[in-house]
């Protein structure tokens, strides 16, 4: 098993919660893991990325070589296009469609979504909306994790347990909300992936 994922977003969007769940599941399944994060200046609303590498063999580089990532998982549409160079020819882009506009030259939303849908293998999901339907837009990151989960070779139970772990202190309701959000994202992606196959 070998899975390289580029996690993308904007500083403050909390992509690290996705990485933490995946990290938990990887450790539980005795996989090797490396996860390079962005700390510091860019966390102030700048473009941030995390390189997550899972494997049953030792991993050397903390960075993913270009053209080798199975997934670009982005919680923001513009950011999903920034890391295409990392994606393998068979790789998927999983992205949220809700723009985070904090720059003056942000592209026109239609043009942006057009570019995303032109990609050969893409799952684009309005994660905020899906999360809102499940109870709270703040669970959108778990919708995104759910949407990526069919493409990551980790047991479903380990991912669910990972979600329980990171929200443990927030109580049962928050855990349930995030699990529902995860499954809603997963169901949405499975439909699209079936069509792609």
């Amino acid at each position, binding site marked *: 098993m070998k899975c390289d994922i580029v996690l993308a977003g904007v500083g403050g969007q909390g992509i690290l919660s996705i990485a933490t769940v995946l990290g938990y599941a990887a450790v539980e399944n005795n996989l090797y893991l490396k996860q390079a994060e962005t700390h510091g200046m860019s966390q102030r609303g700048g473009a941030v990325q995390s390189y997550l590498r899972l494997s049953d063999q030792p991993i050397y580089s903390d960075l993913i070589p*270009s053209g080798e990532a199975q997934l670009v998982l982005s919680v923001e549409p513009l950011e999903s296009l920034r890391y295409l160079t990392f994606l393998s020819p068979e790789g998927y882009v999983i992205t949220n469609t809700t723009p985070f506009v904090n720059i003056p030259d942000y592209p026109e939303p239609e043009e942006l979504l057009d570019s995303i849908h032109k990609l050969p293998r893409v799952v684009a999901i309005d994660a905020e909306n899906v999360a809102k339907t499940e109870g709270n837009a703040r669970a959108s990151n778990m919708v995104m994790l759910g949407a990526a989960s069919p493409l990551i070779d980790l047991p479903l139970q380990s991912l669910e347990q990972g979600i329980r772990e990171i929200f443990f202190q927030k109580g049962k309701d928050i855990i349930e909300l995030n699990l529902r959000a995860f499954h809603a994202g997963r169901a949405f992606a499975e439909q699209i992936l079936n069509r792609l196959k």
Partner: protein
Amino acid sequence: MSKKLLLGVEAIGQGAIDGGISGVYAYPGTPSTEITEYIQENATAIERNLHRQWSVNEKTAMEAALGMSFAGKRTVVCMKHVGLNVAADVFMNIAITGINGGMIIAVADDPSMHSSQNEQDSRYYGKFAMIPVLEPTNQQEAYDMAIVGLELSEKMGVPVMIRITTRLAHSRSGVSLIETPRKENELSIPADPLQFVLLPFNARKRYRILLDKQELFLNQSEASSYNRFIDGTDKSLGIVCCGIAFNYFKENYPGVSPYPVVKVSQYPLPEKLLKRLESQVAEILVLEEGYPLVEEQLKGFFARGKKITGRLDGTLPRTGELNPDLVAEALKIEKPEIQVTALTLANRPPALCKGCGHHDTFRALNEVMSAYGKGKVFSDIGCYTLGALPTYSAIYSCVDMGASVTMAKGAADAGLFPSVAVIGDSTFTHSGITGLLDAVNEQSNIVVIIGDNESISMTGGQDSSAYGRIEAICEGVGVSPDHIHVLESLPKNHEKLVSLLRQEIDYHGVSVIVPRRECIQKLARRKRS
């Protein structure tokens, strides 16, 4: 053996605790901050009540660490690369005094300048001070080296530097921990009462001792398990891999390397291993993160030996951090075509948070300064440095901690009017106070704005040494109380801040204006917990 998922910086923190330190000393700076934060939150560290408060700056941190070492205890002092410039005075001299309790100087460099004003390579400082330097390849080595480094430090009688870079600092991986953390040292004073007295007669003696130890350090490097010769059958090329560059090499040759390799993670450079490589191969490629320190050393001034390639000759870029692709290119490995998008991707640089008090300061400042034209505001290192970017474009300098005050003074000396400094609360206590005293002593015509968000915010909201002390410090330094003003930085106080700025620009002398409001990130965290 227990295993933990740790960032490189956290691994150093855990290693320091398990290696028996009695305290950590540091000033926050990306990418080194979380070494200290990890120790601050660690259960063993809390139970042992290890020293773990932030220091005012890197110099005070290293001096306090030296005091702890003098008293026989083990210690770690942490900083980012430019922080070592601040501590350079004590740093250079610790090599000569030597230590009593073991001492690690953990320095995190930032190649590519992700969060820094330069990408200086701390290995040069290690060489300059003539002390052993450890450069871990991965998180496990970072952990192990903190423990081994403390032992090496006591064995060699000098501090040992651990040098990491951003990528290892902020990457997480599994780390196996030792079963039982080592106990702390007992209190003891140095056997030689003159060891730490660098009067010329004794400094000469101590310096000779340091020089005599160089051979010992070299022998340690030669024997170190962190430095290895890995054989290969293709002798057309030999590779020298330093620190994490080894990973980028292995990423391209995950199995057996065709070329012989010397992996370097302990300095001074292991001469015998490198000579063995040189004797076997036609040419050598040096892979190192940072400046071309090893390449330069191997090449020598006249470059008469075998061909040495790396960052100096352009085989690898001279600047920026390495990655698997750059190393593949240097090894002439073909990469497949990659995907691109036709859309032009707008950059997304960092920006001040929505609702941050610095917005209010820059709005007022720009309104006032519009009457005087550009180039009259000096600034400093912190979140407010983002005021240099549009839409504010309000500041014209960011050089080193505290330089806003002194540059404003120098410009005023030259006749610039008005001359304004914008500095943060923590940067002010880090290195701004002494400059303010210079200005007071000469009655320089400057206005100093201390943007007080009651926190060290850019690095994640650590406690600021300036908290609750700014007015008293300014008054103590000699700024007239009539020209020290504090107001809450809120949109409703805009007119008030504008008129205060105008009033103090018109005053001929040193004025301090303190717009104050808690960092909104810190406020949000406080409300969540």
